[in-house]
């Protein structure tokens, strides 16, 4: 909250777009700002009425360097925008640095994301230290089509203006806490010696030489990838990581997505009855990749580029009682299967489970 808890004394607010950036079409700017306002109006009783000429509560403008408010902009990057807490005059106004590359996608800086953040200030919110929150100070791209206002921001704004009038109260995503014993994973893979754990729109990155675990948005590295990756594995020999979601898969070579992806998973030999892959790992000694779907698994020969005959087989027959596999990866000769908050360590030579741990055992909690 902003010190002094400033808030608007009325729920029906007005806004005006004073001028437009030259970097985007005016209709795209209008659309981005309307979507940004809706982020807040959909979780509170607040409404926003556009005005064309008179002084509005929230005046939105693009400005250069020193623009007479004691807070000059600094050219490309660095400071992107700022806004003022509720009040008369400058109060509520949003200023955007015209020297930024404003866009409606993942290039440059997404105008919708930045305006939505600044409107949080216009309504009385301060910065949040939750790295997944919209009110976190640093820019982080999220595909506007997938954007959901996080719970941290919903809690903040509703503490000021109350809940929305909807019968069903909206809820939002929470940010994974590395040492949360209830943490489960969508997919896990190694990547050039590091371990990447996928969870919703986030990836937890663990470097063997560093004690901390980094939490980032998937979009930070791969803006064109969707959230909710369902399976992933590294083919170390080819220096590739394959990522799966629904009936599509992407190939990352080094750190870049290979052009021409996503492609249908059926190219790998799955029957049409398979709609998604739950987990996968590549056995670097045999060159075989194991795909886990519901209670069965397939085995793919990376050299022949085709599925081996005699599959699918029942997981329980060959791997034991590990249940549905959420995620899997191989490290130092062992395979680690994740099922909810449990992790099974499987020895492919002895063909049996040799140990089981908590899902967060890799994070030095």
């Amino acid at each position: 909250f902003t010190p002094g808890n400033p808030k608007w004394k009325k729920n029906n607010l007005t806004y005006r777009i004073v001028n437009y950036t030259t970097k985007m079409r005016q209709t795209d700017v209008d659309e981005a700002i309307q979507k940004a306002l809706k982020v807040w109006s959909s979780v509170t009783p607040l409404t926003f009425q556009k005005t064309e000429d008179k002084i509005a509560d929230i005046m939105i403008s693009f400005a250069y360097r020193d623009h007479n408010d004691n807070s000059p902009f600094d050219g490309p990057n660095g400071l992107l925008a700022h806004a003022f807490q509720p009040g008369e005059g400058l109060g509520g106004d949003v200023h955007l640095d015209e020297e930024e590359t404003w866009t409606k996608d993942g290039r440059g800086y997404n105008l919708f994301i930045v305006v939505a953040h600044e409107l949080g200030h216009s309504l009385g919110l301060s910065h949040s230290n939750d790295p997944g929150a919209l009110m976190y100070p640093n820019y982080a791209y999220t595909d506007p089509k997938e954007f959901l206002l996080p719970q941290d921001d919903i809690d903040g704004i509703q503490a000021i203006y109350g809940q929305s009038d909807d019968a069903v109260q909206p809820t939002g995503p929470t940010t994974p806490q590395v040492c949360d014993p209830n943490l489960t994973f969508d997919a896990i893979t190694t990547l050039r010696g590091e371990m990447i754990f996928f969870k919703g729109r986030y990836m937890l990155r663990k470097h063997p030489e560093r004690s901390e675990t980094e939490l980032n948005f998937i979009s930070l590295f791969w803006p064109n990838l969707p959230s909710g990756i369902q399976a992933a594995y590294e083919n170390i020999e080819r220096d590739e990581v394959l990522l799966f979601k629904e009936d599509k898969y992407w190939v990352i070579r080094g750190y870049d997505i290979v052009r021409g992806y996503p492609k249908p998973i059926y190219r790998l030999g799955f029957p049409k009855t398979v709609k998604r892959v739950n987990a996968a790992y590549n056995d670097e000694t045999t060159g075989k990749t194991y795909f886990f779907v519901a209670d069965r698994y397939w085995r793919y020969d990376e050299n022949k580029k085709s599925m081996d005959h005699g599959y699918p087989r029942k997981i329980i027959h060959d791997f034991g009682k590990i249940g549905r596999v959420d995620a899997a990866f191989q490290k130092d000769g062992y395979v680690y299967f994740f099922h909810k908050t449990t992790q099974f360590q499987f020895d492919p030579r002895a063909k049996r489970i040799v140990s089981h741990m908590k899902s967060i055992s890799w994070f030095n909690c």
Partner: protein
Amino acid sequence: FPVAPEKEDEGKNINLVETYLQNFYNLQKDHRPHLRQGGKNHLAEKLKEMQEFFGLQVTGKPDRDTLEMMNKPRCGVPDVEQYV
């Protein structure tokens, strides 16, 4: 692996740290150089405040992670105090 910063980098880094803390953590701009030495502890305190906010290791020193965070594009509203 991290490479030890060159002397020139260090100067640039100090400027970055001071400007960042002045912009976002209410570090006072003291224009009397001799106070600067005394101010350094105050700067370390502000740096700790920033490191705590971002969940970094609270060292009070401009280490690599801290400088990396300070270089990220961001909102111009301060993280602490009232923005008037």
